[in-house]
Structures are given as structure tokens and as C-alpha cells.
């Protein structure tokens, strides 16, 4: 780090103003050359359409249902109370996550033997759709405290915790691992140990990433909080904003629903402005990874607090990078055996037949697994009932359908996120006006709108369309912020070189921009898929309102089967086990066999640093 200082690039005075400005002042936004090059006419139109459509749609929806402000105000007290319940749950889960991430991350970063086990576990935990385990958690905690409010609350706090903790743990672990050796050594020379070492050196080293990852954790937390509360409304409703919203939507009480939204948005916006912004500003001093004095670089717009999400996105990206480059899970090692041919792994390009064979082996193994589970249940708890057995045979099809659904949602997200990100990177005005809005929208839990999607949009979209739309809300932002930060961190000199050779328009897109953002695109895709798997469980089967008044969405898929198994209770256990195993195995296989190799190629081939 210090060596860099001596060789810090000095930009000669004769270079055009635009590139010097951005390199030296480190201000956000693209250099002038970049903006010129990104003249891709359809991007602006696409961005406009994507912004306009939901606005028009929401407006007309409000107009048709006939809302009055007075009626809305009447619901505010109840909505506030329920939001307060939810907020308490969030606080509890966050406190848990904070403690857990510090302890786990610290131990993994400082103990070699612990690290070898703990980090792969973490990698699997963060890639597995935890929501699938919610029914288990609910059963577990409810059984522990029968008939009490404590069990379901513990379960929901636990669920929120699982959505918050992992990225924070990675934050702590990585900031401790990347702490420059000389800072550790300086503490050694003064014999600084014990709690003082933690207080003065190790804890401060984690603060920056903890703050930025907390922003993401809270966003994910709200998303899952609402899901968790909706999820449990089937049995014993938890008082909270999620169940409030789903109940209001199921009874078509537009005003009640909107009052809930208003309170929730207000709270989230308040937290954003009063807590995260100042905290992000304060956390700047805890950074140790920046170029000293006069820092540049598009990824680190230090004075620009609205870059929080992009920073957070880049931190998540690094978390993924750790997961990919430092961890070799057994499956990866297994996959590597087939491709071992003396060449370096980065140069290895596997053939289609290799993937086909591997895929076939996996499918066979997976069918075998299902058979074993069925056998075990048959042997231990007596024969599985007919309907459940029938549902178990649907698992492979359901899994396939779910994969297709997630892929479709992903492609749609890509079609939106890419032009939108290019537009934001291209125009400083668009990013100044639009980004704060987008950040607020992104931190708002889309799950709160799920009841509306189910009750109001199904007639227009069909159940299938509604499911895909819900999936998209769980995938969109990861992709968008990663792509945006990828475009912004594209070195200005690459753009300048392209310009001097007259490379513009679509060719620029294909030759420079897309390869340049490829690593960011891959990490964005990995995290987006993670979000997608998690959303799957609510997106495929959502029964809101409960009782006779409820309306439900149900499309064939693995998420649907998990939910059905939950509702079946005890007899549904074999189905639950098979469905969860299938989902987890598929997710891990896709991560290990598609994303991780792709990511390794991205960082070895498309790296420009």
C-alpha cells in the first residue's frame, strides 16, 4: 500500500481537462469521454419507459380503487403500531447479526483451523435459500414454546437474522484478512494485545465494511421480515406491518393498505437519512484500503454519501470474490478432477460434453437421493400417504420449472438493469436526480407489494406473470447496482483509447463496455440468483389473508411444493425434506458449476488492473 504511494500516477498537465478532472478530484460520474461514447439511443428511451410504466400503472390503480386521504389517515395509528412491532423484530435480528458476525468473522479470520471449516460453511449458508428453512424454524420455535407469542416471534427474528448475518460476517472476515500486515505488526511492536487490540485495531478495521454491509442487511431484512410475516399468517398471524399489509390487501382495503405503505416508507426513509447517511459518512475514516491523499478512482466517491449502495454492492462483490477464489468446496474439487489436463485452471475451457456428463451424473445422484429419502421415511414412519407420494414425484418437474422461471426473471431483469445502468453512468444529471430515488426504491421491501401483485395484478398478468414479477423484485437491485459500479469503475483511459480509435456505439458496447463490466456482471448475477432462490418460496405460492376470504397464487414449482408441505404439517415432512434437499442441491450445483467457473474466468480474463 505504501509502495503505491511512491508511484502514484501523476497526470500530466497536457491531458484534456475531462480526464484529469475525474482522475484527480475523484468526483462521481463518468468523464466526458465516457458520456460521449455511451451514446446508445435506445438506452434513454428504455430507461424512460422503465421509469414511466410503474408510475402510470400505480397511478391508475389508485384512481380506479377510489381513495380518500381522510380514510387513509384513520388507519395510520394501527399501521404505526404494527410497523413498530416489525421494527423491534428488525432491531433484535440486527443486534444478533452484529454480535454473530463479529464473533464468527473474528474467529475465522484469526484462527487458521477455524477458517478452513467456517468459511466454506458460510459460503454455503449464503448461497442456500434460507427461507426454505423457515417452516422448520417456525415448527422448532413454536414447539419449544407452545401456544405462546414467543415462538413465532423467535422464528421470524431468526429468519431475518439469516438474511442479515452472512454478508456482515464476510465483511468482518474480509476486513480483518485484508488489514495491511504493517498495521498488525505495529500493534505487535507495542505489545498490544487482548481487548485493547480489539478496540483500537481490529474492531475499527471492520467498521467501514460493517456499516456498508449493514445498509444491505437492513434492506434484505425488510424484504424477509415482510415475507416472514406473510408466511406465517396462514397459521398464527404475527402482528407486524407485513401481516397488516397482506390482510388489508386481501380485504381490498386500498386505504388501509396505502396507510401501511406510507408508514413503512416513512420509517425506511427516516432510517436512511437519519442513521445510514451520517453513519456512512462517519465510517469513511475507518477505511484503510484507499489510495492515500488525493484519492481517485470511480469506485470510491468518498464525499458522495449517495454512493452507499454502489459501495455496498462493490463490497458484496468482494464477498463473492472471496467465496469464489478462496473457497474450494468438495463439489468444485470434484468438478476440477474432470478438467485436469495439465493446463492451468484459468486456461481450461471445458467442453459441452463435459458439462453434459457432469449434469447427468448430478441428476442421477439427485434422483437417487430422492429415492433414499422416500425409503427412509417409508421405513421409519410408515408408508407415505398417497397424495404426498404423488407430490414427491412432482419434485423433479417442479425444480425444472422453477429454474426456468428464475432464468426468465433474470433475463428480464438484465434487460432492464443494463440500459438503466448505462443511462445513469452516461448522464450526470440522470444519476444526480435518479440515483437517490432508485436507492430509496431499492431499500423498500418489494415483498410489501406482493399482496397487491397477487390480488390486483393477477387478472392482468396471469399467475405465471405475477410469479415472475415477484421474482424480479428480489433480483433486480443486485444486478443493477453491480452493473452500475462496474461501468463506473471502467478505467477512463480505456474509454479514451476507444475514442481515439473511433470506436463508438454498438461496437463500443460489444468490444469495450461489456467485456469491461463482465466481472461486475457475473457477481451481480450470482447475487441476483441468490435473491431469486430466496424469493421463489413466496413467489410461487402465496396465500394471503387466510381463512375463507383469502386469495392465493399457486404455480407449479419447488417453492410451491415447500409451501404445500408446510401447510400439510406432519404428513408433509417427507415432501418437505425432498423438496428442500432438491432446492439446496440445485442451488449449490448451479453456483459451483456455472457461476464460480464463470467468475474465475471473469477475473482472470477480463481484469484490467
Amino acid at each position, binding site marked *: 500500500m505504501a509502495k503505491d504511494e511512491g508511484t502514484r500516477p501523476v497526470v500530466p498537465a497536457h491531458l484534456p481537462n475531462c480526464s484529469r478532472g475525474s482522475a484527480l478530484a475523484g468526483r462521481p460520474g463518468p468523464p466526458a469521454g465516457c458520456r460521449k461514447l455511451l451514446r446508445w439511443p435506445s438506452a434513454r428511451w428504455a430507461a424512460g419507459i422503465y421509469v414511466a410504466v410503474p408510475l402510470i400503472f400505480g397511478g391508475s390503480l389508485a384512481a380506479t380503487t377510489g381513495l380518500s386521504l381522510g380514510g387513509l389517515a384513520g388507519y395510520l395509528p394501527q399501521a404505526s403500531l404494527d410497523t413498530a412491532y416489525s421494527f423491534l423484530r428488525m432491531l433484535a435480528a440486527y443486534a444478533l447479526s452484529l454480535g454473530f458476525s463479529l464473533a464468527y468473522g473474528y474467529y475465522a479470520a484469526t484462527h487458521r483451523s477455524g477458517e478452513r471449516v467456517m468459511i466454506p460453511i458460510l459460503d454455503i449458508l449464503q448461497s442456500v435459500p434460507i427461507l426454505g428453512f423457515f417452516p422448520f424454524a417456525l415448527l422448532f420455535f413454536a414447539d419449544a414454546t407452545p401456544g405462546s407469542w414467543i415462538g413465532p416471534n423467535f422464528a421470524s427474528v431468526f429468519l431475518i437474522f439469516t438474511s442479515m448475518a452472512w454478508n456482515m460476517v464476510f465483511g468482518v472476515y474480509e476486513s480483518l484478512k485484508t488489514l495491511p500486515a504493517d498495521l498488525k*505488526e505495529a500493534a505487535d*511492536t*507495542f505489545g498490544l494485545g487482548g481487548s485493547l487490540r480489539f478496540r483500537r485495531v481490529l474492531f475499527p478495521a471492520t467498521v467501514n465494511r460493517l456499516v456498508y454491509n449493514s445498509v444491505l442487511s437492513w434492506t434484505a431484512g425488510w424484504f424477509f421480515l415482510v415475507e416472514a410475516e406473510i408466511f406465517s399468517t396462514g397459521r398464527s398471524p404475527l402482528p407486524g406491518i407485513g401481516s397488516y399489509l397482506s390482510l388489508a390487501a386481501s380485504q381490498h382495503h386500498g386505504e388501509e393498505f396505502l396507510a401501511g405503505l406510507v408508514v413503512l416508507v416513512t420509517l425506511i426513509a427516516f432510517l436512511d437519512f437519519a442513521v445510514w447517511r451520517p453513519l456512512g459518512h462517519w465510517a469513511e475514516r*475507518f477505511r484503510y484500503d484507499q489510495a492515500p491523499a488525493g484519492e481517485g478512482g470511480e469506485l470510491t466517491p468518498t464525499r458522495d454519501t449517495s454512493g452507499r449502495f454502489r459501495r455496498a454492492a462493490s463490497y458484496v462483490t468482494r464477498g463473492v470474490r472471496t467465496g469464489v477464489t478462496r473457497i474450494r468446496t468438495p463439489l468444485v474439487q470434484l468438478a476440477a478432477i474432470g478438467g485436469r489436463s495439465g493446463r492451468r485452471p484459468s486456461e481450461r475451457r471445458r467442453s459441452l460434453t463435459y458439462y453434459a456428463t457432469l449434469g447427468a451424473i448430478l441428476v442421477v445422484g439427485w434422483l437417487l437421493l430422492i429415492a433414499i429419502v422416500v425409503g427412509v421415511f417409508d421405513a421409519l414412519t410408515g408408508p407415505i400417504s398417497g397424495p404426498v407420494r404423488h407430490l414427491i414425484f412432482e419434485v423433479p418437474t417442479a425444480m425444472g420449472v422453477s429454474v426456468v422461471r428464475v432464468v426468465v426473471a433474470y433475463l428480464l431483469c438484465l434487460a432492464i438493469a443494463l440500459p438503466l445502468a448505462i443511462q445513469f453512468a452516461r448522464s450526470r444529471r440522470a444519476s444526480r436526480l435518479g440515483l437517490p430515488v432508485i436507492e430509496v426504491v431499492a431499500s423498500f421491501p418489494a415483498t410489501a407489494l406482493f399482496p397487491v401483485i397477487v390480488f390486483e395484478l393477477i387478472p392482468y398478468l396471469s399467475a405465471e406473470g405475477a410469479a415472475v414479477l415477484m421474482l424480479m423484485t428480489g433480483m433486480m437491485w443486485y444486478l443493477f447496482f453491480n452493473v452500475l459500479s462496474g461501468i463506473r469503475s471502467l478505467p477512463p483511459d480505456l474509454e479514451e483509447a476507444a475514442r481515439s480509435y473511433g470506436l463508438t456505439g454498438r461496437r463500443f458496447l460489444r468490444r469495450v463496455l461489456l467485456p469491461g463490466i463482465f466481472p461486475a456482471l457475473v457477481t451481480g448475477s450470482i447475487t441476483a440468483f441468490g435473491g431469486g432462490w430466496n424469493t421463489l418460496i413466496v413467489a410461487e405460492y402465496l396465500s394471503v389473508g387466510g381463512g375463507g376470504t383469502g386469495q392465493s397464487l399457486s404455480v407449479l414449482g419447488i417453492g410451491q411444493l415447500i409451501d404445500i408441505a408446510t401447510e400439510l404439517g406432519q404428513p408433509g415432512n417427507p415432501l418437505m425434506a425432498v423438496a428442500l434437499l432438491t432446492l439446496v442441491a440445485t442451488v449449490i450445483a448451479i453456483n459451483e458449476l456455472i457461476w464460480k467457473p464463470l467468475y474465475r474466468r471473469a477475473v482472470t480474463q477480463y481484469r484490467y488492473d
Partner: protein
Amino acid sequence: MSLIRIEHVDKSYASRHGTISIMQDVSFTVKDSDFLAIVGPSGCGKSTLLRLIQGLDRPSAGRIYFQDRPVDRVCKKMAMVFQSFALYPWLTVSQNVAFGLEALGWPEERIGPQVERYVSVTGLDGFQEAFPRELSGGMRQRVGLARALAVEPAVLLMDEPFSALDPLTAENLREEVLQLWRDPQLPPDAVLLVSHNIEEAIELADRVIVLSRRPGHILAEVEVTLPRPRDRKSAAFYELTDRVYSLITAGGQSLATAPAPEGAGRSGEAL
């Protein structure tokens, strides 16, 4: 009186390609009020030696004594100044200077005045509340120096302290370090400077220990008796510099850091 005694120290690391020997059979002593410089080509284990002396690392063989007691843990009577400054970006200048004192468990009311004293000794007055990133390279190294001096060490260990600075800043800071060392009111008693800059070593030190390339062993111990302040342009200074260059090139065939010497060097006998 010998302050530090280094006896037949070897250091080697296990690597994938077998053991790599960093240094072999290094022995010398540091006397009270010594200013000792260790020079040698890069990779000869100079910095490792410094870390062995403070006890941050253990020698593979041989012993190191501080005030006749073996160094078997980090010695708090010594303080290190780092090439990269190693300042904590989240601590202010004052807090960085107080760092070592807190580690020693000083009470708060004594830390304050001590920090003030060394902040002003190193010319950092007015910057107490600044953060390291707001300072220039030279000012940062002053903070590093103040942090080391504040614990009033018997020995100041300096690991390439001026290498990351521009030449002018480095020159100023060198003079100030010399003044601090000569001031009897102020610590430290002895200074151990590791450098790859031979002129720098000769300008500052009483004695220069010349290490060979890896595995490092002592080629020579050169006594510098030139009167201070030393003139880098004087013939005597030039001759001494040339001698050390020759020693290193002869002792270590190829050399990455030092420029080629003018004449053919003499063989590396002790002087």
C-alpha cells in the same frame, strides 16, 4: 556496554520448494548510544533481522540478547518505525501517538502530556486532531516517529523509514532524527536503521553493517568516523560509499538495488 547482542542467528522459512534460508550466522553487538545502520541488497533479510531483534519473530538458530536477557517475546523497550508508516487511519495524530502508551497501560492523565511533548518534538503541533490521510508523507512519518519515541524506547528500530518519502522531505527528516538521537534529554539511546540506501546509512550511522545477498551474512562492519554534519560531496564520504558498494557487489555477484560501482571492488573482508 553492549545493549543488544546477536549471536550466530540463522533464519529460514519453510516454503513449497523446501526451506529458504534468509540469513546465516549473523553476529554483532549494539552498544549504548550507538547509531547502527544495516545495509544490503533487497531480500538479504535486513527487515527480518530487525523483527528478530524486537522479538516479533524467532530466529531458527542462535540467540539474541537485550541487556543480557534473551529476547523471547516482543521487547517493549524497543520501538519500530515503519517504511509504510503503519498509522491507523481511524485514529487521529494524537491517538496514534498515544497508541504505544495505551498498550503499556499508562494512566490517561499521564498519556496526554506525554503525547503533547512528542507531538511538539516531532514538529506536529497543530495537527493533533488531524487524521493520517490528511497529512503529507513526511508528516505521516513524523507521526510514526512520535509514536515510537513516546514510549521512550531504549532502542529505536527504523525499517527503511525514509524510503517512501521524496528526497527533500527525507533529507529534512534524517537531520531531525539525528538531532533527536544526540539530544541526551530525549530517547532513544541507540538507533538501528535498516536501509538499502548506502549514502543514507553512511550519513547517519556510526557503524554500518553490510549484509550479503540471500542468504544474508555479514560481509563487513564499517566504522564511520567522519565528523558530523557529514558532507555527502566530500571525498572521504565518497570513498566510503564506494567501498561499501564494492563490498556488496563483490559479495553478492548481481545486485538489484545498488548502481554499478566505478572501479573493481575489493573482496569482502572485514575492515
